[in-house]
């Protein structure tokens, strides 16, 4: 069982979460970005075998969107942050 430590709720089974995909792609600014930027943001992935930054939302818990760093080769969770904290720190 992939277990994700939610910063608010504690360690929970991944089934409490909704997957949100690759979080490494930077979203072009609203109303900005070329069609090419948006294409790459929406359709192209690094898809690494190894550490992967990805979104998960704790839908059955606090509903927080989390930024999870996980090794796709082992499913080891390396780090978890609230997405909003990470965004604000940018």
């Amino acid at each position, binding site marked *: *069982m992939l277990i994700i430590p939610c910063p608010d709720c504690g360690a929970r089974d991944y089934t409490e979460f909704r997957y949100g995909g690759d979080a490494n792609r930077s979203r072009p600014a609203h109303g900005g970005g070329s069609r090419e930027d948006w294409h790459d943001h*929406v359709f192209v992935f690094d898809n690494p075998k190894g550490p992967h930054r990805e979104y998960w939302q704790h839908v059955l818990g606090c*509903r927080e*969107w989390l930024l999870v760093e996980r090794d796709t080769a*082992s499913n080891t969770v390396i780090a978890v942050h609230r997405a909003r904290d990470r965004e604000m720190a940018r």
Partner: protein
Amino acid sequence: MSRRPHRAPAGGRIDRSRIVTFTLEGRPLAGVAGDTLASALLANGISLVGRSFKYHRPRGFLGAGVEEPNGLFTVGRGARATPNLPGTLVELHEGLAASRQNGTPSVGFDLMAVNDLLSPLLGAGFYYKTFMGPLRGSWMFYERFIRRAAGLGVAPSGPDPDRYETRHAFADVLVVGAGPAGLAAARAAGEAGARVVLVEQDTLAGGGLLALSPEQPLERWREDALRALADLPEVQVLTRTTALGLYDGNTVALLGRSAHGEPDAAHGEAREWITTLRARAIVFATGAIERPLVFADNDRPGVMLASAAQAYRNRWAVSLGERVVLGTNNDSGWMTAAELARGGAELTLIEQRAAVTPALRAMAEEAGVRVHTGGLITRAIGSRAVRAAQFSTGSGRDVTLPCDLLCMSGGWSCSVHLGSHTGIKPVYRADIDSMVPGSLPEGQFAAGAANGTFSLAGAVREGVAAGQAAARHTGFGGARVQADAELPDTPYTVQPAVLPPPRRGKAFADFQSDVSTHDVQIAHEEGFVAVEHLKRYTALGMATDQGKTSNLNGMALMAAMRGQSPGGTTTFRPPWVPMSIGALAGRSTGQHFRPARRSPLHDWHVANGAVFTEAGPWLRPWYYRWAGDSPESAYLAEMHLVRETVGISDISSLGKIELHGPDVGEFLDRVYVNVFSSLAVGKARYGVMLNDDATVLDDGTCARLADTRWFLTTTTAQAGEVMSHLEFLLQTAWTDLRVQAVSVTDQYAGMSVAGPHSRKALELALPGHDVSDAALPHMGCLEITHEGVALKVLRLSFSGELAFEVYAPADRGIAVWEHILRAAAPLGIRPYGLEALASLRIEKGHVAGSMELDHRNTLDDLGLGRMASTRKAFIGQELRQRPGLQAPQRWSLVGLECLDPDKTLRGGAILFAAGDEIAGHGRGHITSVTWSVVLGKTIALGLYRGGLAHAGEEIICAYPLKGEQVRARIVSPVFIDPEGERLHA
């Protein structure tokens, strides 16, 4: 079949005072409490227990436990009949009905045994080389016979009457296996203060100790250990509990089974249950399994693992032979030989090694075991029961020894499966000729035989160490454990089994899959030498015993043929033993398969003649019986009601979201294609949201209730998606926006009052509130309190009629609904269901979820392109400009009128222009169809290449599944009231 009584008059872990009667193929038999089906059959002198998968050779029990490949039974009657259960794992219970499998007509006389004679044709991979002709499809002819011949038992035909459960559990330390190492580990971890769960697949804790006579002094150690565990409040010992698989996060799936043969399902007693246990540390004390020797006809009934013979003798007091030959290559074979000899058997030990320690010799001598060193068993003689063993002496002479039991002790294979399920490959240890666990990750430990430590004292020492380490890993350190001084510390040495030279007869590596040395030879010749190729080409290790006795022997055979030393590794996949599908499903069966979502008005619908239909998880009124007895007739009456007078419909399933905050307007401007920030308080607007890729995410309305308070509705299907989408944007992309989204879907019952008399209906229901066109114009909203109940009233229409949506707190929903029905009764108001709702919107040309909103279509495809604001940016704006999405030949929304009065349009029909060849993918398809009560004909919505540019054209709707072609005309999808006069009435 021998009828000699085999049960010793005393001894064993059985209760002779409790006779248990059971049947084998209907024949009544008796065993005693504590028996397994296997021990009871053997005690009854029944040793022919099955036929092999491919060659249908007669087979007896090879083992006494989880490793058993041969003795598989169908147990139970009727819908409770369960095929393929190893008799060694079936606890005997009163009335148990068992039958043997894979014999035609019976296991005793099996016509399919002819396959054994044909075996030169049927070697590994034979089917890839033949059955191809004479025609291309010939395989389908042969396959029927092969399918009938294959398979083991017969599946039950009715629904399972038993109950299953799933559970969740947590532990600091999980110890798997309650043998000496596991008992010691659990105790050590428990005494350190950790919360411990010790699981044991057997009915009793003790592991290998259970195969020793209960009169032995070691029994005291076992009892002491169990007593110590019972005294530790945070230690749980679960017998009849098998660890099936290890998954990520130190999660182990456990299968528990009821001690009762026929559990009481009516009172909720489960037959089996799956527990998902999350442990912070795990100790694998899973023991080891003895390996057979590979010699000709090593599969004859009466040829058995030495450890199994000892277990039958000591645990179940069943002595299987008076003249026993035991072949071995390791020290444990000597111990077993001595133990069996002490039990009274005349025992000859054939040891492949030329020399052993004096201690072993002395022990054998003392027990009266005759010994031949440097000897190899070469063949078992006998067909339905072994009569003699042939062996070659060290000097190369062949000797035949009469015997009634031939025991094999080919060394021990550590049970490394569980620890390797998450990808840690086991490694081969040459000194003990076995796989041992690979380098385990932090928090996982192995101890005892599972770890290659076979001496009792050594296993307990390792168990203690592992238990302490596991406890320490979870934050419990420092406890002192008393050493067990008096446990025997016998060494274990082994020499890899030598393959006897090829002889007549088949020498099996995998018993159930019928993989012999010959098959391994074929695989070798044809180049299937990689371990996985060997397994897939020969089926080695693929049987229901999952290769517990065969994997290592098969790999050793291949290594020998390749001139390599034994080694290599293989992948073990969960589960450790087969797991029933019912236990995995637990109680998520029948209506509990998935939870159902019910409107707050559900009880009213039930009491008032609604017929329900599934809409995703929701149960919604499909139609009401007042309107007719079938959906086809009822929905028309309900449509008439709405078009002509007034109806009321339950729309509680719509997603409802309150948005609060100073920046909601800006937020909505970004997520909807159209502008919301300019919306006045007291007004609502229809909006469409796109995904980043410009496909339509959802449509709905949003009302501005107050300056910073908004009320948004979504489609039923997309409610969850939209909520997450909004939260995602607020939490990741636009963290500066001061907006909070609160789902209020469950807070409010929603009802739509629709029809030309709907305003009158509301006036009657809400006296004192002004719902006139001036006070509440089209797309207006009001918050009112009526008789103490806060209501939201929105003037919105899905049907195209004058209509109002009323939202009331969920617990007042039925009261408000009934109040409206009562108040507006003079107008003839009635409820209408989903079918009418969905049909009315077709007449009005509104798109709907899963029909037109199917994640493929863009704003422009749905004819809504003009909604897109050019004054502000919105999600999906950029990718919407891609040429493929703007191409004039895209399929877009059209209305269709049926032109053939005697025919009907159908959803899923493919559209062609007049003159097109009716072939290929056409120019579009029909998405939604209804009979229009307004127009008196069938109408449809569809997607058509070029869309309304073809308005007025006559086209063909092809439905070849029914051999139909129907003419239709492309029209505006807004079939009624294009000017909106009804809405604005």
